[in-house]
């Protein structure tokens, strides 16, 4: 059976099919046999040509985490990511204008006010999480169009904080 996965936002294909006690795997270049089984709900043991690999899995609503040999791969369903890809193009245009929270936290301070002129790298707001304050800086020169949050607000990752507009 062919599978498509988005791994760290890039589309990858793999073929996997059960044949008696082993699996036939093909990645488009090579085809080989693998002995694959669950060790626990969070671990898959893979034997390929006598070499042993252990892959850890964790599952979340819309993504899965795979971890082996010190490396983590975040795998998502292709359909979902495609939508955000499309939206992504528009986003890139607006990314600089819409300033978002980089992580979940608490807004400590909004350093600017609406209609105010801002320089590049000027601190717009301070968001705190886990006792660390993070300065949110402007990546453009322009004006503050709208402020969506105020000091004391709890914000999730990616939550819009401030909208900027470019200098004419």
């Amino acid at each position, binding site marked *: 059976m062919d599978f498509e996965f988005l791994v760290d936002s890039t589309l990858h294909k793999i073929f996997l099919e059960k044949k008696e006690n082993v699996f036939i795997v093909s990645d488009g270049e090579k085809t080989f046999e693998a002995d694959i089984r*669950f060790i626990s709900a969070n671990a898959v043991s893979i034997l390929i040509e006598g070499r042993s690999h252990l892959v850890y899995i964790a599952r979340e609503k819309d993504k899965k985490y795979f971890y082996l040999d010190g490396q983590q791969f975040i795998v998502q369903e292709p359909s979902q990511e495609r939508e955000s890809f499309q939206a992504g193009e528009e986003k890139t245009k607006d990314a600089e204008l819409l300033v978002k929270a980089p992580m979940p936290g608490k807004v400590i301070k909004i350093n600017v006010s609406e209609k105010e002129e801002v320089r590049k790298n000027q601190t717009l707001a301070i968001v705190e999480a*886990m*006792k660390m304050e993070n300065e949110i800086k402007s990546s453009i020169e322009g004006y503050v169009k709208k402020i969506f949050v105020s000091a004391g607000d709890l914000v999730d990752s990616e939550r819009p904080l401030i909208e900027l507009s470019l200098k004419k």
Partner: protein
Amino acid sequence: MELRMLPRLEKDIILFKKILVANRGEIAVRIIKACQEMSIPTVAVYSEVDRNSLHVQMADEAVCIGPAAAIESYLNMERIIQVAHQTGAEAIHPGYGFLAENSDFSRRCEEEKIVFIGPNSRALELVGDKVRSRQTMEKAGIPIIPGMKRIAKDFSELEAEAKKISYPVMIKASGGGGGKGMRIVSNPGELKPSLEAGMREAKSAFGDESVYLEKYIEEPRHVEFQGLADNHGNVVHLFERECSIQRRHQKIVEETPSQALDTELRFRMGETAKKVLQVSGYNNAGTVEFLLDKDKNFYFLEVNARLQVEHPVTELTTGVDLVHQQILIASGEKLPFKQEDLKQRGHAIECRIYAEDPRSNFLPSSGKILFIKEPKGPGVRHDCGIYSGCDVPIYYDPILAKLIVWAENRRMACQRMLRALEDYVILGIKTTIDFLKDVVSHPQFEAGKTTTHFIKQYFDGWEGKEKTEENLRLALIASAFDSLNQTSAGKGGAAVQKEVSSPWQTLGRWRLGGK
């Protein structure tokens, strides 16, 4: 040498009937375990977001003390004292952070006849006041970093002062820290231009151009001594810990013994540390921090008046359980050993596991831990406050756990730490595990050449190793296998589905490429 670690088993000691642990996370768990070993019932306190935390599960009793914000819960002294009375706890262990070094809290406990497992409030007040403790230490002949104690009038005064301190000197802004206005001056010719630049920078950063001079410590190492002092005037030290590996003044890797100390220097620093505790009128566990320069001169920095995060490396090399000792001292016991009874054995290293993303400027990473596999094996200790399925809230310190290893020598301890880190998996949130692997396997670390500049010098802009094609292929295979089981489970289940409970069955459908 025989240490009588648990005298309770040998003679009758009246220990506390119950201890309240005024903390959360790994340190609360660590303290509860010590209490359990001493058959002392425990009371956990928790904030509204910590209901599911590990310390709540482990304690005999647990009481909610308020909302998530620490100021309304873990720092709420009156509420904690009220809970102690209400539950009949005779003593409070504050752990580290929160109220651990708060002399007001220590005094409130004294007033309420609750034993504060830590130093008395007077000593706590003294060592907590940087200026006063510096003066006290200087009077007692303890070496402190040479520097000016006031702002100079003019350049000639600064010039004379720099000569007195001896070059290299550091210019520091009076108005604030963060490296602003700071300049290192290595000879008299550089003094004037550096002062001008430093003052300009200080003026623009703090609106105050005043600066002062301090001796610049070259290639500094952070070396601290663990002390224990009972209520009967006995003081011992349990040797040093080297904590030079720091990021933004936060320790991340600690070890003992320090590679910079020999027997003679260790003896001198240890005796100095004891003297620091004595002149402070200190009791219970405390740590004396020093800076050690490249010429092996050491300078007193401060006393950490609490159980330290990095205390396990001392425990593994001395065989002394510091939390047991804290409890015994607080209950009025004399120290069960003298200085000459204490020996260091082997080498121990600790890595702090933080909920931070080392690949994006160590941004805090909160959220649900979907899966944790704890490292195990000979000489491996894992002090941990998390479990698979737990939430890491945004409100508190990002420390999740501590990985500590012990081995016969340093080389083997480094190896063991690397293996243990490789055996350590946390999925769901970002952690510093990968970063630490590169730190402990760095040639300069392996060579023991650790200074407080280490991370800045060698790990600025660290990105980690690139993912390999082979690992990607294996991840894809595992992913396809997982999806295959998921679909076949829907059709009645493959053999493997019967063996393993299947949380993935409840997950949304995954679109497969083929039809």
